[in-house]
């Protein structure tokens, strides 16, 4: 239901959808280029970009030194002077290395220049744990950048959204950071084949309709919520799964509307719980739907610990479908 009136579709993986979006935009607009570590012949460690260098060459699919801050800065400057760079940050954890270029430079330049300068920059990176990659390759840091005015933040959860949001990010005149869940790359789905399939940034998507409880889930947690919804349905509870798709801008109205309809809301997000995206979303819903709510808004998020290596410990840190089911049942039958 996420993609009404989009014409023909094709089944493809999330990774292929990202690759297709990039190829189409590289073909459409000569100012688009990709730069990052091992993006060319290697096609990134996840092989998401495989083949792009063959069609577009090493002048548009550019391997950089391992200098995240440096090549992000180059991306900012290129964006300010007529290009539309896609900067590839291999792991979301490496956002820490580029924060000055993103937060003090890219996010503020349009405002500080009184609207004269533009930074049409796309940064693609990852989020998500449970790949046994331990504390420095498993974080979900989207809340950090969602906190900064001037940045847009997209979190595709399906192959179709991956294509539509990537194209939107590239065509947008603002810096957009797009987080891809590493575990989604091989997930398959129907993806519109149209080259003009561009999703608006700031519009949530109802991934499943329901009347009893609203599950607002982001990125990796959308599949978790959908799986939970299936289990709940077998118990006669119809959950509505709402995917904000972007945390900045946040589609307050759709989230609030759903919570008003069901009267109950759980927010599920893979960032840490304290000061996380889940906190902001819960606050928005609590404020906007207060008089319609039958219970407090609940949150499920990553535990407030560094992501551990030991598999049994790591699995404890992120919300599971069972956690969501249990939370929903408690909310409905306290």
């Amino acid at each position: 239901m996420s993609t009404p009136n989009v014409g023909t579709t094709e089944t493809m993986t999330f990774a292929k959808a990202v690759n297709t979006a990039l190829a189409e935009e590289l073909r459409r607009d000569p100012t688009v280029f990709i730069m990052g570590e091992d993006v060319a012949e290697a096609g990134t460690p996840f092989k998401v970009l495989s083949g792009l260098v063959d069609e577009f060459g090493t002048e548009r699919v550019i391997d950089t030194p391992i200098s995240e801050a440096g090549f992000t800065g180059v991306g900012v400057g290129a964006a300010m002077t007529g290009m539309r760079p896609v900067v590839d940050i291999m792991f979301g954890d490496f956002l820490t290395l580029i924060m000055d270029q993103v937060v003090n430079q890219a996010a503020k330049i349009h405002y500080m220049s009184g609207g004269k300068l533009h930074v049409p920059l796309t940064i693609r990176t990852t989020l998500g744990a449970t790949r046994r990659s331990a504390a420095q390759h498993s974080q979900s840091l989207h809340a950090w950048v969602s906190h900064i005015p001037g940045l847009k933040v997209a979190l595709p959860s399906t192959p179709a959204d991956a294509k539509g949001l990537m194209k939107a990010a590239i065509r947008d005149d603002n810096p957009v950071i797009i987080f891809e869940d590493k575990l989604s790359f091989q997930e398959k789905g129907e993806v519109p084949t149209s080259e003009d399939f561009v999703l608006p940034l700031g519009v949530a998507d109802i991934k499943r309709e329901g009347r009893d409880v609203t599950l607002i889930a982001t990125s990796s947690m959308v599949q978790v919520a959908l799986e939970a919804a299936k289990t709940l349905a077998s118990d006669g509870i119809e959950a509505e799964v709402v995917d904000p798709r972007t945390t900045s801008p946040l589609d307050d109205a759709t989230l609030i509307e759903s919570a008003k309809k069901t009267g109950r809301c759980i927010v599920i997000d893979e960032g840490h719980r304290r000061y996380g995206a889940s906190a902001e979303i819960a606050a928005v819903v609590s404020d906007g739907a207060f008089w319609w709510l039958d219970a407090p808004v609940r949150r499920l998020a990553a535990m407030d610990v560094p992501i551990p290596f030991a598999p049994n410990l790591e699995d404890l840190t992120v919300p599971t479908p069972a956690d969501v089911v249990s939370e929903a049942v408690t909310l409905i039958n306290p």
Partner: protein
Amino acid sequence: MTPPKTTTPKKPWTRAAALRAYEQMMRIRVFEEHANDLYLSAKMPGLTHMYTGQEAVAVGICEHLTADDTITSTHRGHGHCVAKGAAYPEMFAELLGREAGYCRGKGGSMHIADQENGNLGANAIVGGSAGIATGSGFSAKARGNGDVSVCFFGEGALGQGLLFEVMNMAQLWKLPVIYVCENNMYNEYTHYSEVTAGEILGRPQAFGMRTAHVNGQDINEVHTTAKDLIDRARKGEGPAFMLCDTYRYHGHHVGDIARDYYRSKDEEEEWKSTRDPINLFTTWLTSNFKITEDDLANIEAQIRSEAEQAVDFALNAPYPDDSEVDQHVYA
């Protein structure tokens, strides 16, 4: 530190170009006198950093640039902004936070940008603009338009890793970027020798980058050296690093008055009286062209009159409307 000896050819300028360079240096000096006054008389909010003393660097280099060439600047950026062609009224208005300013009053002294003249902005993060300048060079190369990008920074930025990351890429990809290190000898309140190991030029040289070291108080030398570096960058021969020995007359910022704990009054006096870039150029101009002190005084008087009008304009210009506060967050 002894600046290297001047080795410039006798006449690096035509008469008209030389007069224009003088005018541009004087334009920076007079701008800053007024900015300083505005700050000290509490008419200017915030904080500001004076470029006075370093004029020959900005002007000597920017006189080679077109409006399509770009520069990035620093927190000490008024000089670069003027040298790249900015106008007084919009500059003063910006420093005073008025809507008529280059950035509608939203940038101020530390973020002033002037896109039409190719100034991509002052930057209040030391070394923070190195990526932007390099990206602009990348952009010029990708489009093959022959434009160059000049990255102005102080020697304090030598402490920032970003600078070395982007210099590596610029050299690797032969980008048309000139890295101009203005060594005014003080990282804020600390002499650079206390915080800088090894040789400054050893850094770019390690990347295989073309380097030059000039007396930044001598605009002839700055201008002549910059020409070679900019020409070869335009031809696709790659970036360069230009080290300019210079001196800031004021403190780190306008409020840095009692500063004899980090540098002596004698030292300041010595630079002002024997190595002032405008005085040095005045002597050179009057002995190499038929230009009199009176000719130069007339130019200065004209600039002073323009400055007074511009300050008056800016002081009477309105602040941005309150409704502007959430405009331009997103394009």
